[in-house]
């Protein structure tokens, strides 16, 4: 259990956030090991691979990104591997705010969403008013989804009311856009902190909670994702509201992604097995999934050279 070093005043909405249950790291690791022993074969494997494709937020977040690079990524999103007919689409493209317009134009009519990181990504070390302005800018450029970062320094100082308020403010700045709250779990140090940050993000209005920026190691792990899924479950049980989850960074193989799906299935069940509520933030995952789908359909593994890079 986490105590408040700066207690919320009785009128602050943080007072409505229930005490977060403590988390035992060893127990979480054991549970995760069990998910990994599930043997997913044949139809179950094919079903998983297609579901994973549909949950991918195809991502490029580099200082050297250009409109041409983003257009290539969008082309990949719309033509994953045309040789294999009937594949689902990825869920979204995830880019920096300056490239939202490019992505928006490139994806016109495709149904693929545009997600933009914002709020001083990846560190969040920027005045709040600028972070909010950046959010509004990304939305006005056409972002359907905003991936914000929380101020980890403030959180680690125990300033949970600040964390709550910044998320609530960004949510408001988002308007109709969906808000994903990046906790940057690699900087939160403990699973207790991951759980607390998840609870605050959900009660403050985050539509999704997301593990990582991809810029800090470790990025997503199954352990932190499990703790966050449990926060989603408890939030749903308490409020009846259903929110989403996005592990991001470090999930580059189909095999690992399948283990995540197993974990999702056995923690939250049917209602969450949809791209509406679960996403993988990844740049390399799609091609490994495509490789595996091709293997399932044709019986042989093909060279990676047959799959287009984005």
């Amino acid at each position: 259990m986490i105590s408040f070093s700066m207690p919320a005043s009785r009128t602050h909405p943080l007072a409505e956030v229930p005490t977060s249950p403590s988390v035992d790291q060893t127990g979480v690791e054991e549970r995760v090991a069990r998910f990994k022993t599930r043997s997913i074969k044949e139809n179950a494997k094919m079903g998983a691979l297609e579901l994973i494709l549909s949950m991918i937020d195809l991502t490029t977040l580099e200082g050297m990104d250009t409109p041409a690079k983003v257009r290539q990524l969008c082309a990949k999103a719309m033509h994953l591997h045309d040789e294999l007919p009937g594949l689902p689409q990825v869920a979204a493209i995830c880019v920096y705010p300056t490239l939202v317009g490019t992505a928006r134009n490139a994806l016109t009519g495709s149904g693929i969403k545009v997600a933009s990181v914002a709020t001083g990504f990846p560190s969040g070390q920027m005045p709040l008013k600028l972070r909010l302005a950046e959010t509004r800018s990304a939305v006005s450029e056409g972002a359907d989804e905003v991936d914000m970062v929380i101020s980890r320094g403030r959180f680690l100082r125990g300033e949970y009311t600040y964390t709550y308020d910044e998320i609530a403010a960004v949510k408001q700045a988002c308007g109709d856009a969906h808000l994903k709250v990046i906790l940057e779990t690699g900087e939160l140090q403990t699973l207790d902190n991951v759980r607390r940050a998840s609870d605050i993000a959900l009660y403050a209005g985050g539509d999704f909670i997301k593990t990582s920026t991809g810029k800090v190691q470790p990025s997503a792990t199954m352990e932190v994702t499990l703790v966050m899924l449990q926060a989603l479950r408890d939030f749903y049980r308490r409020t009846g509201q259903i929110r989403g989850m996005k592990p991001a960074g470090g999930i580059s193989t189909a095999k690992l992604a399948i283990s995540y799906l197993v974990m999702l299935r056995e923690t939250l069940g049917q209602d969450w097995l949809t791209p509406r509520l679960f996403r993988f933030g990844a740049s390399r995952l799609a091609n490994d999934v495509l490789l595996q789908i091709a293997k399932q359909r044709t019986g042989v593994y093909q060279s990676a050279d047959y799959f287009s890079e984005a």
Partner: protein
Amino acid sequence: MAKKKKPTLNFATDWSYAPAPESTDHVTIENRYDLFIGGKFVPPSKGNYFNTINPATEKRLSSVAEAEKTDVNRAVKAARTAYDKYWSKLTATERGKYIFRIARVLQERAREFAVIESLDGGKPIRESRDIDVPLAAAHFFYYAGWADKLEYAFPGRTAEPVGVAGQVIPWNFPLLMAAWKIAPALAAGNTVVLKPAETTPLTALKLAELLRDIDLPPGVVNIVTGAGNTGAALVNHPGIDKIAFTGSTAVGKIIQKAVAGTGKKYTLELGGKAANIVFEDAAIDQAVEGIVNGIFFNQGHVCCAGSRLFVQESIHDELIDRLKDRMETLIVGDPLDKNTDIGAINSKMQLKRINAYLKIGTAEGAELYQSACAVPEKGYWCRPTLFLNASQSHRIVQEEIFGPVLAVQTFRTVDEAISKANNTPFGLSAGVWSDKGAKVFKVSNKMRAGVVWANTFNKFDPSSPFGGYKESGVGREGGVHGLLPYVRLT
């Protein structure tokens, strides 16, 4: 105003797991097994055999010999000859080498042993593969190391072997229990006559083949199959110096009477009804996992199973919601499927016993809850089961059910938890769940139980002693303690 519907999770998912059965091609089970006496398989004197079946399909797997009194005589004589002629003449280092060899070959043939264990006993392949067989090998490795270091196990004293050990083991962990018994006996320089349980004799007989194949001197380990009469003949045999029994408290009491005044050494590892205590400050999801592991591991056929759950009242509803969700994700079915969590009940008789307790619990007024999973038509199955609102005065709380059935009670204070947990004739194990270190130590120290797990459950290691308080048994197995019953100290 209409009552708001409670949000629930739905685990009947569109995407689920395809069957993933472990292959059985690499496994050979003979049509018939004789008795393993003096290093050879020999037919039983009266020529009687009984069937052993696969509890998941009710199909016959093989027939095994029924050892009569004369066969037990032969086995004890072979063990005595082996003791005098070979085993006591070997150096301790050579003895250790043989035990290391058993461990190594068991590891090499792990898959074969795991599959047969699941076929014969009904336990999921995930457990036989990841727990039973590796742990059995680990016991041989551990005690092999002690063979030439007994002077360090008992400093300042000389440890002499006892002689011939008669060992009777149960059906819940057939190979593992054989390892628990045989490894320390051999390490300390004894020879062995072992009787496996009548419903699960195959891995012990496979072990006999292994012992023959690695050239263990003839008669050092003899394996005689049969039912209660065979066990009684072994226990009552005057040529036995030491008895090791794992099984029910009722039979344990009979054995204790039988050995009274004979001078035989004995250890008894008997029943249990472990308390698993969850405090309000526990890491709740991990506690749920521990509860599941505590009672549904091996279909609940575990003497140290956490079969009595005590939950602090303030978190009862929340914990039970999560436990029910978790139970919905447990897969009951084909023990050979790698995704199966709960396999078949070991025998028709045991299923009958469990079902009788389900009736008793309901009649006593506890509230029965079972997960919704489908179970196969053929075979012996029991869904994971809770009895909510159980009481100390209920039989389902007092008596060992030995199945996947958990009796749930609440408590308000630490003292109440301790008092209720100890209010049982058993005392094999206990579990304590709390995020507060001081509370964990305080409560653990007050548990009248041989093994206490804190923030975990059902963890086993060859170096850790295991055994009971009160009616859960006499003596310890495992660790240095486990050598003691097999030596005379001078």
